[in-house]
């Protein structure tokens, strides 16, 4: 039977965002992936035409489809159009991913990237593995930044005084601006930009300076990472930028420096740190002195928790000890401090002369940095562990000066490039008021945010994946920024914008090329874009000497002072949030939902305090308190953080946005209100408001309860008992001979590969990049705060963080208290933290499989525990029976919930009266069971962000880590297609054909190794062959394919806080007895 309906009318193309790809937008391929976005399969019966039609209706949200099945075609599929190119483009194959090298600019550098794109649609961000020294690792922000590209709330329009204007009109305004100020040589023209490492922008800046001599240029960063360079420049008397080589250092001392977490370029630090810290002899040792409990502290061998404001004194004491070997006097350091700790630490540094790296945190004042350089110099590490490269020139004044300037001068036009000063400039500055002083404010911004609200002209900015540009990485290498897609909303890149103001019409690509015209000719240019960097463009300076005198240091030291903290004189530490950065990712759902690496908090920031502080102030978790600091006030919830320094408050910046968007608005509290520009301040006071706030935390229980999930040893014991991990069972595994042979053993013989994974807990620092990478690769939905609170987060991969402590300090009664009571137990004062990435273990004897009634989860012959979403009916039995609880259940249609309602409880929105796009949900559902509660403008963009290789799951379906089966299949299919009529079908590590999982690829530490365990030469086989290899809960005889390399710590026996075994082992021993004398141990 035929359907003769409207089969020749060519379809109307709906709202199009694919400017560059108009024709592509009509290709069958394009539509095909549109359909593939939300596969009907997971939602409806396979052959049921009815549901397919409904499904297609959704998919055609942005494309009016010509054919809709009618009664005529009964239970058939509806008519779908395949619309090929008019003119077939050259060397373009639909369906094959394309990869482009680009880079993500950061404050003091850039992250070289390779971006995967389907049909002109960027899908996944990877690190550029070709980049010198890189392992292809990235950081959280880079992984999540792709979601911003498809953020429905990004600025879509050019606006003048709040009214939308057409693009041309806006651009004309820029031309007039240009003419006007060319006339008066820039009188009253001021620019405010964020710092950048782009040579092209620097060139434009200079051009502007020459074209508008009287114009002013100011730079500011809410989070100031420039201090490393400024300090080095002062210390060494010339503009230099320090590059820290943690891999070369034997002993590392962090002076309140969270180089693994909050510092710029953390992913590089992690890479190098991990490289220098492979379990075994010669692994480096890390001392951390800090007030907050940071990732760095969590990975330290020795951690000293002190107020951030007293770090300067301690640094000085250590410097003294290192130079003259004198033990520091009581006078110089805070009273309650263990002097032995300092002196022994200093000795250790001195012993390792030349291989030492002392680094000061960016939140610490200049003096600490200078002291750090002094110690490095004293132990002649400059040029070895600390390389110095030419610093970028001083690029414009700071925003503080702009404030003065705005006061003093008549600023006619203020051009704000990016940033968001209204939100994130110091509260005392009251920028909102200052900004009004300028007659006209022109803003180039990615969002219509707080600043945009107060600007006269708003220009939508282009995402870095939409723009041409360049940047220099922190080690000085030149990298290109090339677009993968035309700006979805016609936004302008910073360069476009500035060139326009310069009155030049040439596009930013030419702008970039002309910058490097000197050395980048046609071929080089191609190579430049292909590789994504210019090899050898980083050069470090030789024999630079410290010029700052010790007397000068002492002077500064005195200025720093020695504050004495108490409940009435608290210290506030402002830090860069691990998720929203300075607030720029506040509207990024992945980031909001990513558990904080340490607190495991989502969708919130809090006032971090130590147990003692909380007790003295009489506050508990969730209590809303008002913090007063030099006249400013802010209200936030308390969170007791184990291992915090007493009388020190940790405040994450970047939350409490008022105009962030559907996701970010109103999440957390805005710490900028009491921020004055100094990241460490004393003199704060707190009082309870009496109200409380609910905090959604993904891991409520802190202690490991002596269970051997994470197994640790110190280097000494590890060398004595290399296979200690194997001995540490939860219980003696029963010695049983199976009644029946395992059919999988038969299947193994014929299978081409056997997939497995090994995770090195010594390397893993717990940064959480893998979690975001996994979310991005596997279309994992965002569930929202309320759902996280209910324990329904969907992350296939999570990072378990346990606090361990001296069992003697632990009160057995605490074990029976609620998780809420943990904050009051004393053992949390001094804790060690351990991290464990937890994902599907792909057990060979998977408990989940045998209980599934419908064969929805079974094993494939290559050892994958596969999950067929479209077969799953959602009994949830598999998850109950999974000892690792790594299976995630779609309790609701998370893919169809509107972003704006993620924060609130579902019941408000899902109630039957709820409307979407002015229509009752229940009606929408009746017409189309696949309709969600998402408005079209959300659909249009969110569809684009999905990875076409992975089915999007509907409500009522179980899902879990698949070892990125789509990548495995892609590799296998590629190899087989290549093999054709031959038997060369096996993927080999030697041939480099083994696929990488998303988490493995993203991990900056290279802690995750994935591959073919049936190939003895593969890295994963070698890793699993190491003595410290163990399987979590292997005593349940699940035969996990994912195993862990036990963590090895390297403490210094001379230190006062030295213990023979890590706390986790002590806790284990207390519960299960010493694993190494088998007589005593019960045989369960």
């Amino acid at each position: 039977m035929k359907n003769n309906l409207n089969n020749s009318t060519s379809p109307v193309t709906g709202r199009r965002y694919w400017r560059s790809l108009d024709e592509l937008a009509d290709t069958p391929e394009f539509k095909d992936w549109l359909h593939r976005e939300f596969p009907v399969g997971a939602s409806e019966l396979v052959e049921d035409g009815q549901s397919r039609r409904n499904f297609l209706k959704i998919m055609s949200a942005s494309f009016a489809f010509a054919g809709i099945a009618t009664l005529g075609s009964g239970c058939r599929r509806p008519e779908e159009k395949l619309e090929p190119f008019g003119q077939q483009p050259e060397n373009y194959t639909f369906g094959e991913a394309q990869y482009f090298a680009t880079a993500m600019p950061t404050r003091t550098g850039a992250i070289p990237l390779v971006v995967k794109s389907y049909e002109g649609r960027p899908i996944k961000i990877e690190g550029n593995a070709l980049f010198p020294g890189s392992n292809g690792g990235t950081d959280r922000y880079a992984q999540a930044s792709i979601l911003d590209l498809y953020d429905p709330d990004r600025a879509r329009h050019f606006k003048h005084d709040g009214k939308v204007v057409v693009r041309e009109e806006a651009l004309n305004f820029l031309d007039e601006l240009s003419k006007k100020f060319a006339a008066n040589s820039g009188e009253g023209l001021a620019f405010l930009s964020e710092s950048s490492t782009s040579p092209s922008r620097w060139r434009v800046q200079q051009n502007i300076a020459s074209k508008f001599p009287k114009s002013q240029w100011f730079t500011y960063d809410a989070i100031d990472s420039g201090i490393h360079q400024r300090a080095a420049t002062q210390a060494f008397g010339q503009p230099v930028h320090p590059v820290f080589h943690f891999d070369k250092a034997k002993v590392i001392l962090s002076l309140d420096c969270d180089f693994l977490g909050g510092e710029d370029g953390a992913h590089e630090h992690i890479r190098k740190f991990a490289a220098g810290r492979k379990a075994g002899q010669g692994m480096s040792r890390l001392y951390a002195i800090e007030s907050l409990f940071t990732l760095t502290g969590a990975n330290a061998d020795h951690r000293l928790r002190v107020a951030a404001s007293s770090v300067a004194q301690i640094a000085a004491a250590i410097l003294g000890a290192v130079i003259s070997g004198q033990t520091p006097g009581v006078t110089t350091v805070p009273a309650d401090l263990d002097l032995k700790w300092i002196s022994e630490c200093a000795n250790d540094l001195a012993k390792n002369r030349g291989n030492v790296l002392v680094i000061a945190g960016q939140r610490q004042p200049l003096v600490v940095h200078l002291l750090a350089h002094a110690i490095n110099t004293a132990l002649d590490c400059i040029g070895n562990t600390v390389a110095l490269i030419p610093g970028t020139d001083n690029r414009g004044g700071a925003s503080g000066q702009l404030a003065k300037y705005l006061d003093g001068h008549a600023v006619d036009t203020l051009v704000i490039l990016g940033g968001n000063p209204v939100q994130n400039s110091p509260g005392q500055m009251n920028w909102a008021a200052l900004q009004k002083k300028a007659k006209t404010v022109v803003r180039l911004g990615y969002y219509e945010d707080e600043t945009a609200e107060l600007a006269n002209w708003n220009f939508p900015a282009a995402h870095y994946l939409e723009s041409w540009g360049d940047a220099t990485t922190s080690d000085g290498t030149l990298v290109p920024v090339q677009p993968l897609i035309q700006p979805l909303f016609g936004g302008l890149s910073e360069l476009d914008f500035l060139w326009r103001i310069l009155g030049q019409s040439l596009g930013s690509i030419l702008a970039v090329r002309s910058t490097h015209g000197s050395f980048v000719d046609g071929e080089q240019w191609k190579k430049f874009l292909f590789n994504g960097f210019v090899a050898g463009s980083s050069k470090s300076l030789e024999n630079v000497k410290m010029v700052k005198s010790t007397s000068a240091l002492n002077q500064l030291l005195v200025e720093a002072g020695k504050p004495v903290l108490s409940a009435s004189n608290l210290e506030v530490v402002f830090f860069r949030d691990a998720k929203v950065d300075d607030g720029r990712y506040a509207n990024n759902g992945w980031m909001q939902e990513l558990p904080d690496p340490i607190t495991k908090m989502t969708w919130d920031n809090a006032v971090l305090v130590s147990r003692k502080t909380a007790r003295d102030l009489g506050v508990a978790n969730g209590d809303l308190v008002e913090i007063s600091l030099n006249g400013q006030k802010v209200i936030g919830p308390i969170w007791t953080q184990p291992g915090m320094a007493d009388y020190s408050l940790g405040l994450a910046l970047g939350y409490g946005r008022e105009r962030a968007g559907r996701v970010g608005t109103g999440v957390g509290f805005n710490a900028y209100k009491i921020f004055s520009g100094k990241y460490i301040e004393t003199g704060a006071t707190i009082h309870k408001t009496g109200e409380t706030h609910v905090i959604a935390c993904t891991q409520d229980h802190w202690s490991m309860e002596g269970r051997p999930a994470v197994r640790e040893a110190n280097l000494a014991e590890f060398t004595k008992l290399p296979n200690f991990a194997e001995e540490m069972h939860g219980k003696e595994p029963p010695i049983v001979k199976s009644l029946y042979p395992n059919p999988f053993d038969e299947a193994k013989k014929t299978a081409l590969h056997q997939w497995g994974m090994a995770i090195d807990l010594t390397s893993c620092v717990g940064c959480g990049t893998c979690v975001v990478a996994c979310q991005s690769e596997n279309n994992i939905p965002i569930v929202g705060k309320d759902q996280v609170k209910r324990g329904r987060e969907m992350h296939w991969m999570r990072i378990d963080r346990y606090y361990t402590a001296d069992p003697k300090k632990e009160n057995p009664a605490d074990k029976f208290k609620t998780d809420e009571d943990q904050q009051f137990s004393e053992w949390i004062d001094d804790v060690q933290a351990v991290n464990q990435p937890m994902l599907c273990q792909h057990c060979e004897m998977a408990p989940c499989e045998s209980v599934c009634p419908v064969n929805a989860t079974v094993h494939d012959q290559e050892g994958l525990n596969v999950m067929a979403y479209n077969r799953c009916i959602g009994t949830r039995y598999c998850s109950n029976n999974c000892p690792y609880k790594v299976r995630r259940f779609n309790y609701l249609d998370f893919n169809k919930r509107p972003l704006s309602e993620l924060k609130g409880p579902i019941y408000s929105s899902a109630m039957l009266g709820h409307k979407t796009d002015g229509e009752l949900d229940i009606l929408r559902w009746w017409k189309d069971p696949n309709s969600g509660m998402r408005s079209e403008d959300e659909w249009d963009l969110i569809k684009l962000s999905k990875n076409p290789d992975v089915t999007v799951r509907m409500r009522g379906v179980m899902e879990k880590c698949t070892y990125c089966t789509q990548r495995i299949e892609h590799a296998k299919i590629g190899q087989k297609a290549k093999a054709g009529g031959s038997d060369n079908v096996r993927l080999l590590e030697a041939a480099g054909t083994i696929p990488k999982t998303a988490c493995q690829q993203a991990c900056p530490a290279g802690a995750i190794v994935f591959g073919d365990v049936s190939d003895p030469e593969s890295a994963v086989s070698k890793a699993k062959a190491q003595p410290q290899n163990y399987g979590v809960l292997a005593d349940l005889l699940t035969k996990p394919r994912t195993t862990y390399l036990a963590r090895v710590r390297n403490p210094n026996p001379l230190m006062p806080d030295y213990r023979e075994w890590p706390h986790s082992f002590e806790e284990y021993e207390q519960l299960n007895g010493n694993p190494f004398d088998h007589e005593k141990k019960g045989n369960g």
Partner: protein
Amino acid sequence: MIFPKWTNSLPLALGVIAALTGAAVAAGVTIYLTPKYTRAGYQPVQPVPFSHKIHAGQLGLDCRYCHNGVEKSWFANLPGASTCMNCHNQVLKDDPRLQIVRDSATNNTPIPWVQVHKVPDYVYFNHSVHIRRGMSCVECHGRIDQMEEVSHAKSLSMSFCLDCHRDPAAKIRPTDKVTELGWQWSTNDEEAAKLQEVNGKKFVHDWKVETLQSCSACHR
């Protein structure tokens, strides 16, 4: 006398009727609600009366001339109008039936072909690997080269896929014969069958062809 005598035969009758209806329903479902019926035979009217019979059959164009992406991608792409014009700028250059094609080529406006073959969206079928490993187009699409207008020949249901995945030897053929839809080992069917069996086994063994039946083969 509420119940006359005939009512005694009522239960039996009802039982029989129930049984028959049940059987009928079962049969109806299997016949009319399974892909065998809902998919196979689907033949929409195309905007351009393109005849595979003429092009692939009589003229003997290779499938890959138009569907040139099929060996590289999971998707067997449709040719752009420009591809058609390669010949049709000489052949039938003024034929009114080709107006749409000419317009498409000149104005670069797409031709709205109606899609015939489509597996559900959570099924990740890959053309390239099947084609390049000796699985002929004909196995799933039927004798396209004999169709005036393309129609859906096979059911393309999961069990349809499984048949082949369980026993590839029955279908596999030399890689250079993949696009010769009519090809078989011998003109004599009987002999062809025998040869297929022998060589099929041989290929499966020599090329290490896997019989993938677990979810991961098709579902991601």
